[in-house]
């Protein structure tokens, strides 16, 4: 199945977007968690805090479905 990962923040360069400036098309298998998918892409998990899909915040144990557009956020703590 195909999902789309996106980031406009700090993870942008690691993600290597190919669909547009912020989005990467990823082929993966059904049942894979975000942790597994990010691992396969070589994106360090310490650099991803959470994701959001369809307007909802999701933890990294989220299991994407075909066609999901998933935005990943790095840890942010600055003030």
């Amino acid at each position, binding site marked *: 199945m195909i999902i789309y990962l996106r980031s*406009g*923040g*700090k993870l942008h360069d690691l993600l290597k977007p190919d669909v547009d*400036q*912020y989005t990467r098309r990823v082929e993966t298998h059904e049942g894979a968690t975000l942790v597994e998918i990010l691992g396969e892409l070589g994106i360090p998990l*310490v*650099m991803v*805090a*959470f994701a*959001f899909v369809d*307007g*909802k*915040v999701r*933890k990294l144990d989220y299991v994407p479905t075909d066609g999901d557009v998933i*935005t990943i*956020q*790095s*840890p*942010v*703590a*600055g*003030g």
Partner: protein
Amino acid sequence: MALSNDELKRYARQMGLPHWGRNGQERLRAASVFIAGAGGLGSAAALYLAAAGAGRITLCDPDTVELSNLNRQVLYSTSDVGREKVTAASERLASLNPAAAIVPLSERIDTSSAPDLIAGHDIAIDCLDTLEARFILNRACMALDVPVIYAAVSGFTGQLSFIHPPATPCLECFIPHKNPTEKPQVPGCTTGIMGSLQAAEAIKYLTGIGSTLASCLLIVESMEPRFDILEIERDPDCPACGNQAA
């Protein structure tokens, strides 16, 4: 006490907003706001809250002003470098609005100090710069039933939420215990946007107008640019407010 003629003039360009009026202005004047952190976010939030007429503003930060702060911490001037932040900030806020009572606290927020520092305030504004301090503020405010307006920044990214459990998730329900891997780069425009939005959330809550970002997380990506308002939910396994929380 009724608003004075000076107050009516000073606030004339906001009191005419729908539902704000004299009542909203008086509520703001009676309010006590705790601002945790007088850095980039705290600068914007404090300036707009003082200008709007918040009656009492406590500023809590143990640091001194450094030259590298001045790209984003707009409470301070070059001549303030080396001074205690809260002292310099109090002078700036008092000159902006002499009617505001500014309480400077040159203290670090930790588990033992937080409850006494925060008690007696109507709302807390989280302008801190470490996750550890943010989680301490989160738990102390939850215990005191004080709502928190959370914001955090890195680069052109900002996050914002209105936190008041049990009606909303707490901070630890949706922010994992994962620190940024490096000290963030932060342009002043990002702290300006997010600190101003924190002031807006506080003003709405304190005056009783509009709706807050309760149970929502706003993500601002100014680089794209893109604003997302996301649903967040309480986590039953949350270490701070979940079923197993101490």
